[in-house]
């Protein structure tokens, strides 16, 4: 009830289930379309980090790993910040 009082006076809409649904949906369909089991992507990420680490020192905190959808096609976007090469 308290929350609704704030809502009543605040001009901005509350952040309801809409964005949650959208995020879950996106994630679910990415996996559905690729027939990708849960956890599979994470193990790929681990392996890729290990491979790149053989060649470079990595800033591991900034490594980004993402599946992006464009027109029903999925791309794997991996972003490694390289510090220096290992010889």
């Amino acid at each position, binding site marked *: 009830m308290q929350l*609704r009082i704030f809502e*009543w006076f605040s001009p901005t*809409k*509350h*952040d*309801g*289930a*809409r*964005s949650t*649904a*959208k995020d*879950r*949906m*996106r994630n*679910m*369909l990415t996996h*559905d*379309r690729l027939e990708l089991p849960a956890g599979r992507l994470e193990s790929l990420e681990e392996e890729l980090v290990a491979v790149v680490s053989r060649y470079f020192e990595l800033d591991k905190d900034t490594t980004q790993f993402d599946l992006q*959808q*464009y*027109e*029903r096609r999925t791309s794997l976007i991996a972003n490694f910040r390289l510090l220096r090469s290992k010889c």
Partner: protein
Amino acid sequence: MSGRVIVITSGKGGVGKTTASANIGVALATSGASVALVDMDIGLRNLDILMGLENRVVYNLVDVVEERCKLRQALVKDKKLPNLSLLPAAQTRDKSAVDADQMKALCEELKSMYDFVLVDSPAGIEQGFQNAVAGAEEAIVITTPEMSAVRDADRIIGLLEARKDEIKEYRLVLNRYRPTMVQNNDMMSVDDVLEILSVKLLGVVPEDEEIIVSTNKGEPVSGTDNVRSGLAYRNIARRIRGEEVPIMDLEVKNPSWMSRIVSFFNPTVRV
């Protein structure tokens, strides 16, 4: 004449395929086109009820395929629109009663008789769906803005994509849309669903109690004036015929102070 064969499908059951088939059929026929509605939900016949034709069904689609009657004998004419006919499903058989080749042949024959052949597909992605799609060149995918329905629609779109050689075009109808809930950020919007599915939009049909009333009467809403969902279906029919019709304004006006007070004390009442 060579008409267009359009399959109406959804994956998930209960999202409004049959209602959409009936209403789009009536709307197309009202605009002057000749239309055959084909109920492919063999074993679970319903389209005849929505059209108010359940008492006139003598033969059905399976009778035609198994040559117990001529196609023309099985087609049931609509009560009001002489250019609209229904080919009912069999109620006592199952999906295996017809195969894809038989369906293709049937659609070919219907296509030579009508401007539009609308095939109401059964729910699911199994043989019943595959048969319903067999003779079609276009598809209409129906979904509601709920997660489970959108997920199933995505699966159907994937299967339609795999049939690119036969299905030249598919578009989405977003059914049972609740603008108030979207405005309150409680439900996915039209744009959310389109973005997630990457699909072209054919129309948006608002949630409307009149649909239940019309089903009970056996008179699809698209034949009635002053009903929002009926207007949405008439717009869909015009878009199918190639007209540019903007999506109708679904925005709900700011609620009055009075109704805000009501909803404040009783949050379950949506105004």
